[in-house]
C-alpha cells in the first residue's frame, strides 16, 4: 500500500479482531485531494433545506454559485431556498470593507422576498477583512422584525464537520423563540433533508403510529417550526454527524432527550420506529409499529429475495459523508446478497469506525477522509463490483468499470424507508447487471 501517504497511514484500518484503531477527526492533509469540502459547505448543506428562509452568502461569487440549488431537498411549500444570493464581493469591497454592501443586500432581499428569517453566511475572506457581520445582522433583525442570523463559516476554520456545528449553533438561535400548543406524542426529526421526498415517506410512518411530527430539521423545514422545536418530547436524530450537536444543546437547555436512528435499510428503519414507540411507552403505538413493519416485510421480502438470488457474490465499496449511514448501507447490502469490501467516510468518528470493524467481514478496508488515488487502488485490490458514493466518486468508479449508486445529497431517488430500500435494491441491481460491463472487462 505504498500509494498511501505516510501521514495518512493510520487513517486506514481493517476489519477483524486485534486490528488497530483508526485515526479520524483530523484536518485533511494538504495536497492529498480530499473528497471533503469546507466549513462553509458543512453549514450550507445543513441549513439549505429551510425553505422559507433567505440564505445570503457574504463573499465573492464562487461560494454562492457552487451551492445554488445544490441538494435535492424538496419543499411542500415555499422554495426560497432554491435561489442563490450573494454579495458578490469585488476588489474594492475587500479593500474598503463589505458591510455596506451586505446591509444593502439584506435590505433589498428581505423587502423583495419577505422571508421568515435570514441566514447570513460569512466566507473565508469575510473572516479576514473583519466585517462585523454579527452586529449588522442584529441591527437588520430589529429593523425588519425577523431573525437575521449570522452563520460564521469561513472555510478555513476547520472541516466540513465544523460547519455542521456552526449550522447547529445558528439553528439553536431560533429554537425556543415561539411557543405553540404541541401534542403529547410529538417528535422533531433531525438530520433528514427530504432528499427526493424521503421525509414525506417517514412522516407517513409516524402518522400511522399516531405520532405528531413537530419540526423537521431541516428537510422541508420552516422557520416557525424550528422556533417551536423545544416543545417536542423527543429529538429523533439521523445523520448524527450533522445534527447531534443541536440535539445535545436542546437537551441541555430544554431537557429534550434524543435518540440516534437511521432510516436506511429495513432493519434500521424498523428499529427506528420501535425505538420511538418504546420511548413513549405506548403499547398502542408499538402495536401499530409492529403492524406497519409486518406489512412492509410481507410486501418487501419476496422482492428482496429475488434481488438477493441475482446479486449474491457481488462486492461493494462504500464511501459516503457520514459513517453512521455507512453502517446502515452495509446491512442493507447484506440483505440483497452484496458483500461490503471497502467502507469509508469523510467525517466518521472513532465509535462509528469501531462498529464498522465489528460489522464487516475480516479484511474489509476501512478508511477515513480518503482520496481518488487510494479509492482507485482499494477497489482494484478488493475486486469491488459496485461503488456507493457521491458525485465526486462516480467518475472514478465508472472509469475503471464499476457500477455506481449515488447515495449523496444530490440523489433524485428516495433511498430511505421501506420504499427506499426497494429503490436501493433496484438501483444496485440495475448498475450491477447492466450489459455494458461486457465492454469494459
Amino acid at each position, binding site marked *: 500500500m505504498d500509494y498511501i501517504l505516510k501521514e495518512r497511514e493510520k487513517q486506514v484500518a481493517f476489519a477483524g479482531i486485534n486490528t488497530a484503531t483508526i485515526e479520524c477527526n483530523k484536518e485533511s492533509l494538504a495536497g492529498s485531494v480530499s473528497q471533503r469540502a469546507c466549513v462553509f459547505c458543512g453549514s450550507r448543506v445543513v441549513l439549505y433545506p429551510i425553505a422559507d428562509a433567505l440564505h445570503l452568502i457574504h463573499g465573492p*461569487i464562487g461560494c454562492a454559485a457552487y451551492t445554488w440549488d445544490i441538494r435535492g431537498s424538496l419543499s411542500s411549500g415555499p422554495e426560497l431556498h432554491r435561489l442563490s444570493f450573494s454579495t458578490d464581493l469585488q476588489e474594492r469591497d475587500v479593500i474598503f470593507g463589505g458591510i455596506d454592501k451586505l446591509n444593502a443586500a439584506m435590505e433589498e432581499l428581505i423587502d423583495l422576498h419577505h422571508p421568515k428569517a435570514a441566514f447570513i453566511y460569512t466566507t473565508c475572506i469575510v473572516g479576514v477583512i473583519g466585517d462585523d457581520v454579527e452586529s449588522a445582522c442584529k441591527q437588520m433583525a430589529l429593523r425588519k422584525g425577523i431573525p437575521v442570523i449570522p452563520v460564521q463559516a469561513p472555510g478555513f476554520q476547520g472541516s466540513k464537520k465544523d460547519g455542521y456545528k456552526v449550522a447547529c449553533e445558528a439553528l439553536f438561535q431560533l429554537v425556543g423563540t415561539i411557543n405553540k400548543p404541541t401534542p403529547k406524542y410529538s417528535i422533531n426529526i433531525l438530520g433528514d433533508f427530504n432528499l427526493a421526498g424521503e421525509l414525506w415517506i417517514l412522516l407517513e410512518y409516524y402518522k400511522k403510529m399516531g405520532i405528531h411530527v413537530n419540526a423537521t430539521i431541516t428537510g422541508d423545514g420552516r422557520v416557525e417550526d424550528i422556533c417551536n422545536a423545544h416543545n417536542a418530547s423527543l429529538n429523533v436524530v439521523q445523520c448524527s454527524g450533522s445534527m447531534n450537536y443541536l440535539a445535545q444543546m436542546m437537551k441541555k437547555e430544554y431537557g429534550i432527550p434524543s435518540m440516534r436512528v437511521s432510516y436506511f435499510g429495513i432493519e434500521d428503519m424498523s428499529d427506528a420506529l420501535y425505538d420511538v414507540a418504546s420511548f413513549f411507552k405506548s403499547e398502542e403505538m408499538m402495536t401499530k409499529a409492529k403492524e406497519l413493519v409486518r406489512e412492509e416485510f410481507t410486501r418487501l421480502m419476496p422482492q428482496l429475495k429475488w434481488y438477493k438470488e441475482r446479486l449474491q457474490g457481488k462486492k461493494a465499496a462504500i464511501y459516503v459523508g457520514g459513517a453512521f449511514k455507512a453502517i446502515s448501507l452495509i446491512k442493507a447490502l447484506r440483505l440483497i446478497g452484496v458483500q461490503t469490501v471497502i467502507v469509508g467516510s469523510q467525517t466518521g468518528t472513532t465509535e462509528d469506525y469501531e462498529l464498522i470493524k465489528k460489522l464487516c467481514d475480516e479484511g474489509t478496508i476501512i478508511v477515513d477522509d480518503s482520496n481518488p488515488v487510494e479509492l482507485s487502488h482499494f477497489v482494484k485490490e478488493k475486486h469491488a463490483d459496485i461503488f456507493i458514493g457521491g458525485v465526486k466518486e462516480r467518475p472514478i468508479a465508472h*472509469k475503471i468499470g464499476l457500477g455506481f449508486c449515488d447515495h449523496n445529497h444530490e440523489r433524485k431517488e428516495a433511498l430511505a424507508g421501506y420504499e427506499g430500500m426497494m429503490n436501493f435494491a433496484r438501483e444496485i441491481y440495475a448498475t450491477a447487471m447492466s450489459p455494458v460491463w461486457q465492454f*469494459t472487462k
Partner: protein
Amino acid sequence: MEKQYISTRNACKLCAPLGASVALKGIEGCVPLIHGSQGCATYIRRYMISHYKEPVDIASSNFSEAATVYGGSRNFITGINNIIRQYNPKVIGIASTCLSATIGEDLPGLIRDYKEANKDKELPTFINVSTASYCGSHIDGFHNTLLAAIKSLATDKLKGDYINIFPGFVSPADIRYLKEVLDDFGIKYILFPDYSETLDNEHWKDYQLIPQGGTPLSDIMRTGGAKATIEFGNVFNKGAVKSNAGRIQTAGEWLENEFGVKNYSIGMPIGIKSSDSFFNILSEISQKSVPEKHRKERGRLIDAYVDAHKYVFGKRAMIFGEEDLVLSLAGFLKEIGIEPALIGSGGNSSLLRSEVEKLFDQAEVPISVLSGSDFETMREQAEELNPDILIGNSKGYYIARERKIPLVRLGFPIHDRFGAARLHHIGYRGTQELFDRIVNALIEYKQENSPVGYKYI
C-alpha cells in the same frame, strides 16, 4: 427601467479558480493545486465532474486557521510534497484564491523557496496564476492562466513553420474538430489548452492518476517561435481587473508584443460569416484553399439555413453565458433571422455593449444587453421581453421551465443533460449541429403545443 439590485441573485458566472482549473487540465501531465481552503478545490471538482463526467483531481493546500494567520507556506510545501508523492506530475499548476490573495500570499516567492530547498531533486515545472475570485469571473481565470503559462514558459529560441491556436473556453468536441480542420489544411499547430482528452477520455482498464492528453510543456515553450497565433474572442480577460495597473493582455497579444508572433484575434467561429473568417485565415496561413470536405460542410450548412429559415425567422431569443460566447451566438442568430432580445452575461468587462453595437445597427432590433448580470435579472426581463427560446448553459433551465419555452443548452455548465463534452458548436460542422438543435427545439415546441398531432411539420 426596473430596480437594480446590489446583490447577485442566481449568478451567471463562476469564480476565477474554476476557469484556471479547466485551463490547467489542458496541460499535459498537470495537477492543479488551489492555494486556499479545502472547499474551493472540492466545489470546483464537483462542478466540473457534473459537466464533463470525468475524474477531475484538483489538490488543495487546505488552509487552516493557523495558515490564515501565519501564512500558508507550510501547507504549500506539504501540498506540493504530497502531490509529487501521489501523482509524480510533470507540471503543478497553482491557482490562488480570494483567501490566499487577501492575506497576501506570495506564490512566486513560495515556489522560489520550494525550488531552492529541493534543488537536488528533479522537480515538476511550476505554473502559477493569480485568481482571486473578487477579480473578474471564471473566464478571466481561464485566460489569465493561459497568459501566465505562456509568460513563464514561452521562448522564441526555436522558430518553426507552425501556428498557435488558442480557442478559449470551448468544448472537448470543439477542440477535436479544430485539430481535424488544421490537419486537413496541413497546418502544424500548437493548440492550447487542449483538454479534449483529459476532460473527455476513453474508458480505462487501470485508473490513470493523471489522464492522458493535454498540451505538452515543450509545445507551450515553442509558442514564442510560431509564425502566427489565432485566438478566439473579442473580450477575453480584458476587462478583468479594472483596478490593476497596466493593461491585461491576452496570450496572443503578449506573444505578438514579446516575440512578434502575428496575432489573429477573431470571434469564436459560430455561424457562416465568422467561420468564413476563420477558414480564410487558415487559407492565408497555409496558402491553400479550403479543403473540399469543409467546403461541402459549408454548403450543406447554407442548404440547411435555407430549408429551415421559416422555422426560425422572427423568433426572439434570450442568450446568456460568457461574453465571448454570447457575442458569437448573437452574430450567428443574426445570420438566421432570430432576434437576440436579450444578451446577458455575468462577465463585466464593460465591452459587451460596444461589441454588440458593432454587430447590430441600433435601429435594427431593440436588444437588452446585460453585462455583469445574473439569472434573476434576466428572468424579470424575460417577463417583458417574452422570448421564444433560451440559448445558454443549463442554469437558465428554471427560466425556460417557468416560461414553458425551450432551452437549447450550450457552454458551461450543463448539469442536466448527458454528453456536454461532446456538444460541438464551432466551425461549419459545429454550427450545423447547433442550428439543427435550435430548429428542432422550435419545431418540437410548435408540435407539442399544437392541438393537431401533426406528423409532418
